[in-house]
């Protein structure tokens, strides 16, 4: 099957809605179909990547630990919007995994190079 560049845009906090976990599921499936998968985190979506999450206290699935294994799925493009982090008092050191920090204007240019953008 042909290979395209997919971008999954994560804009929701991890447990305020069920969308974060299901977005990750979709990204992993795209990767398993040998697509070039990119993840972008912006707005409250940046909270998905912060360290020391305790989903067990909410009886929620610990999908954040899957971010640690992204390399196994050949997902190595993780973009985080710099402005969204700063607006929430976060820095790169608060994040679970190494990411590429991009500003808003750059992110929109990067999105223009993507074949399939999926957001929720």
């Amino acid at each position, binding site marked *: 099957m042909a*290979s395209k560049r997919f971008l999954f845009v994560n804009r929701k906090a991890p447990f305020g809605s*069920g969308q974060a976990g299901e977005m990750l599921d*979709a990204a992993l499936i795209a990767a398993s179909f040998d*697509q070039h998968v990119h993840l972008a985190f912006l707005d409250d979506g940046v909270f998905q990547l912060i360290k020391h999450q305790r989903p067990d206290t909410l009886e929620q699935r610990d999908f954040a630990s899957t971010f640690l294994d992204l390399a196994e799925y050949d997902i190595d493009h993780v973009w985080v919007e710099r402005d969204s982090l700063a607006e929430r008092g976060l820095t790169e050191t608060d994040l679970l995994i190494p990411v590429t920090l991009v500003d808003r204007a750059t992110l929109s240019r990067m999105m223009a190079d993507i074949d399939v953008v*999926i957001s929720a």
Partner: protein
Amino acid sequence: MKFAILVNTGPFSHQATESALAFAQAVLASEHELIRVFFYFDGVHNANRLAAPSNGERNLVRAWSKLASERGVDLVVCIAAGLRRGVREANLAPGFRISGLGQLVEAGILADRLITFGA
């Protein structure tokens, strides 16, 4: 041009779902092609044939089914998202089929444009 549609919202809570249906109808009325509509997240509720809106209210579930029966549109419900929300073969509306997320990925590959509703 080949279009595919991703519906992320339920039938009676968001304008996005109405817009998705209107967009699908517009594609079918044009020279373009609609290769698949994929229902994910709360979008799976669009496939629940037990939905019974009151008289005078638009029945979106039936409207989608009609697209399948009259125009042969491929309506695919994500199995994992569906099971999680109680949408399964037993209550699947006519014209929908249940399959995996691979069908969403395939739609993205085959279509020239994948349009998301409910972002």
